[in-house]
């Protein structure tokens, strides 16, 4: 009963109500084999709900989902066999050691019995858990528990990885490590990664699906998204010089829409597709002033939503 092998995840008109509360509102999307796709959205957007449906934990109210070619309702076991899942908050049995837990997971997920021992060593190596393999999970710090979560998700070498905010609540070094790991895994596997951090998507994913209030508001390749983002870049400047005059000269630069002055910094709004940083520096040097700092301000997710929902039928 396999359908469409190119699309590893296929979601059609998916709707989910919790009682009367609409959490996912008629969304459709596909993820192709080998893609790493970001599932981006603010709190309560419906990311976790969608992922719980994709993994078979929750049934949809309406709509259809296929994973690895199998319908998640009618051929649930087959579909689930191909999924590695990192749930939000990564719940684990605290009374088990890392080794016994991974052993349990690999059996449950159907890994060949003869492979279990070597595969545990492999994933422990991949996730840097060597020193903790015989420690009770309840005694691990959050960062290490999160690594155990990744380890159990990949232990049976699934075709699809569904990762629900895998970098939340851990320190920056581990965040970087996890992202690196996701990139590595993405070379061989299909990954759907949910996050509310914009930069995470541009760092790890090839394509992004943006969801808000249960609806997909944009879906595009990262290159296009980043031009959309840089399309309205903002730059913050610190300049030694007469504030009124500096602002006036800045406004005259081509590609700058607006200049404001707050907290002894200039905030410069640039128009779409323009990068006037070179010209800004020239102007300041020509004026005989001193440039103390210059930085781009990243657009926040909220800014993007605002942009997408106000002006943005552009990327659909």
């Amino acid at each position, binding site marked *: 009963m396999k359908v469409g092998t190119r699309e590893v995840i296929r979601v059609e008109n998916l709707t989910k109500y919790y009682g009367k509360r609409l959490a996912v509102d008629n969304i459709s999307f596909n993820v192709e084999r080998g893609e790493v796709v970001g599932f981006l959205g603010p709190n309560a957007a419906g990311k976790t709900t969608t992922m719980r449906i994709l993994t078979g934990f*929750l049934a949809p109210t309406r709509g259809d989902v296929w994973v690895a070619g199998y319908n998640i309702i009618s051929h649930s076991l087959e579909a*689930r066999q191909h999924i590695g899942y990192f749930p939000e908050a990564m719940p684990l049995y605290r*009374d088990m050691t890392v080794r016994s837990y991974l052993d349990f997971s690999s059996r449950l*997920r159907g890994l060949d019995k003869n492979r279990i021992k070597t595969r545990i060593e492999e994933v422990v190596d991949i996730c840097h858990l060597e020193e903790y393999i015989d420690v009770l999970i309840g005694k691990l710090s959050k960062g290490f528990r999160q690594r155990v979560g990744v380890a159990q998700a990949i232990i049976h070498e699934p075709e699809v990885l569904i990762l629900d905010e895998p970098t939340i609540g851990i320190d920056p070094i581990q965040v970087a490590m996890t992202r690196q790991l996701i990139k590595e895994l993405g070379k061989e596997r299909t990954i759907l990664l949910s996050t509310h951090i914009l930069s995470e998507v541009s760092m790890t994913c090839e394509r992004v699906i943006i969801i808000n209030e249960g609806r997909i508001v944009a879906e595009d390749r990262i290159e296009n998204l980043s031009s959309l983002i840089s399309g309205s870049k903002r730059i913050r400047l610190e300049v030694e010089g007469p504030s009124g005059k500096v602002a006036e000269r800045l406004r005259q630069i081509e590609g700058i829409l607006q200049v404001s002055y707050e907290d002894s910094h200039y905030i410069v709004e640039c128009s779409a597709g323009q990068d006037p940083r070179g010209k800004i520096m020239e102007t300041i040097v020509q004026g005989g002033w001193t440039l103390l700092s210059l930085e781009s301000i990243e657009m926040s997710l909220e800014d993007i939503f605002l942009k997408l929902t106000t002006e943005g039928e552009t990327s659909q």
Partner: protein
Amino acid sequence: MKNTTTIALREFKSYLASPMAYVVTGIFLVLTGFFFSISSDTYYETSIRGFLGIGSILLLLLASVLTMRLLAEERKMGTLELLLTAPVRDSEVIAGKFLGSLGMLTAMLVLTFYYPLLLMWFGDPDWGPIATGYLGLFLLGGASLAVGLFASSLTSNQLVAAVVAGGILGALWFAGAAADLLPEALGEVINYVSLSYHFPDFMRGMIDTRGIIYYLSITVLFLFLAIRSLENSRWS
């Protein structure tokens, strides 16, 4: 079957790693030991009826406590999410949990073998009623565990699960007592569905097929209800 075994083994080991199981076992042994030692049946009949009488009632409580965390805790901790997204049938999850707790119950019953062994040391007990008594306890215990597992599938609160299990088991147990007050025809029906009605036969050394079928039916019924309840939680 493989999945069921995997889950059952994890569950059984998790009992061994938790203080709760030892406390429950301890209380069970102390109380049954006490009643065994003060019961006149022990001395005049060299039988284990003193143990069986209190043991059967204690089993109901013990089953409620042993099973309360099986699903409620998984739901509360969120680990249920990984269990139910593994390629495992809901029926295998329930069967595994049930067998894990049955393993624990069996271990407890095995620890009480020293009551009949003591009798053998001091006298010449009739082994028939001892064997059927244990069979009865095992069947009753299995049915109670199934009820407890079902209760645990309903909630994420272990205490609520234990109270619900205790409530259902208590009602099924004492239904027999209420039956005596009712008109005969109705009383007989109620008696038949009562957990306590079938037990005395086992204590007397009789193998009552109706009793065996009854306890097995209760077990299967509540395991089935637990599976349905697990399935339902996906459609919430």
